[in-house]
């Protein structure tokens, strides 16, 4: 809706983003399907990771060569870091490339469920915010942790719905509801979204955006799924603005209950 779109902007760290769907770039079958998905998703913010250059094939194309960065905004993550120190180092390396001072802060000691470490995340966030980074922290759905991070000055909080890559949807729904209720910075639901209904539900709760990767990359048709999730995000946001009907314990007829004609 023009009118809605016109007034309903997502602004993070003073930057207005054209889409409330952020897309990850991992795990696609190939570059072509990733590019199709990026295009179809309508997203602006795109996450990437830092890894060692492969000395055996240093000239190999990187994601920087593949994606047209005039059309997308890069968000480096600290995936793979297990401590605050490791994450701070990777954030600094990423910034030194001169592409962005934003960082998706992930401090993940746990290889099985990939849950983040709340204490190390706070330590890293304090230092990175002091150094002028725009920090988007990936966290478990802990309302107190979320509040402390926004007090530190992170530009978003990004609570998980369920484990990364699990596609289980919003297992943490009630706590995400509370985080949104109390947040003064944009809340981005990250991890666990497996289908448009999950994305729509997050937006209906009042989330400001969602970050998706596996649900698109691992779909049978990533491009079409990217479009589907884009639709779910937009639908959920519109519903949030439109104000949903209250839930009722009983039924309420949709057709008039007077003037019914019955056999004489």
């Amino acid at each position, binding site marked *: 809706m023009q009118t809605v779109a016109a007034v309903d902007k997502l602004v993070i760290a003073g930057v207005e983003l054209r889409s409330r769907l952020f897309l990850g770039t991992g795990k696609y079958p190939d570059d072509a399907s*990733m590019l199709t998905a990026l295009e179809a998703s309508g997203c602006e913010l795109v996450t*990437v990771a830092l890894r060692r*250059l492969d000395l055996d094939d240093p*000239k190999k194309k990187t994601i*920087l060569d593949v994606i047209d960065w005039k059309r997308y905004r890069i968000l480096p993550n600290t995936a793979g870091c297990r401590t605050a120190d490791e994450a701070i*180092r990777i954030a600094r390396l990423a910034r030194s490339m*001169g592409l962005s001072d934003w960082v998706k802060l992930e401090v993940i000691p746990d290889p099985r469920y990939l849950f983040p470490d709340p204490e190390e995340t706070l330590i890293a966030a304090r230092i990175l915010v002091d150094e002028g980074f725009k920090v988007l922290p990936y966290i478990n759905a802990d309302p107190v942790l979320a509040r402390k991070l926004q007090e530190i000055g992170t530009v978003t909080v990004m609570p998980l719905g369920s484990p990364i890559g699990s596609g289980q949807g919003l297992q943490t729904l009630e706590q995400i509801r509370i985080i949104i209720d109390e947040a003064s910075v944009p809340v981005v639901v990250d991890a666990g979204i497996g289908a448009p209904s999950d994305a729509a539900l997050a937006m209906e709760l009042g989330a400001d955006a969602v970050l998706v990767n596996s649900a698109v990359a691992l779909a049978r048709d990533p491009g079409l799924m990217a479009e589907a999730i884009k639709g779910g995000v937009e639908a959920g946001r519109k519903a949030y603005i439109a104000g949903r009907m209250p839930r009722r314990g009983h039924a309420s007829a949709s057709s008039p209950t007077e003037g019914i004609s019955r056999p004489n």
Partner: protein
Amino acid sequence: MIGLQVNGKLIELDGPILLTDYLDKLGITPRGVAVEHNGMIIERDAYPTTTLHDGDVVEIVRMVGGG
């Protein structure tokens, strides 16, 4: 002959070399990478003035697809 540790591997070179020249040798443009030299991050404008010596430890990272 000098030996460096680059990305965890031992590399032999004829002698000390400028970071810019080493990246040239690898055939990559500075634009696409970030470099840590003996634990210090090197800003891009310092590449031409950074010399890699025997025993140095270098990390060269690049962007890859990630979530």
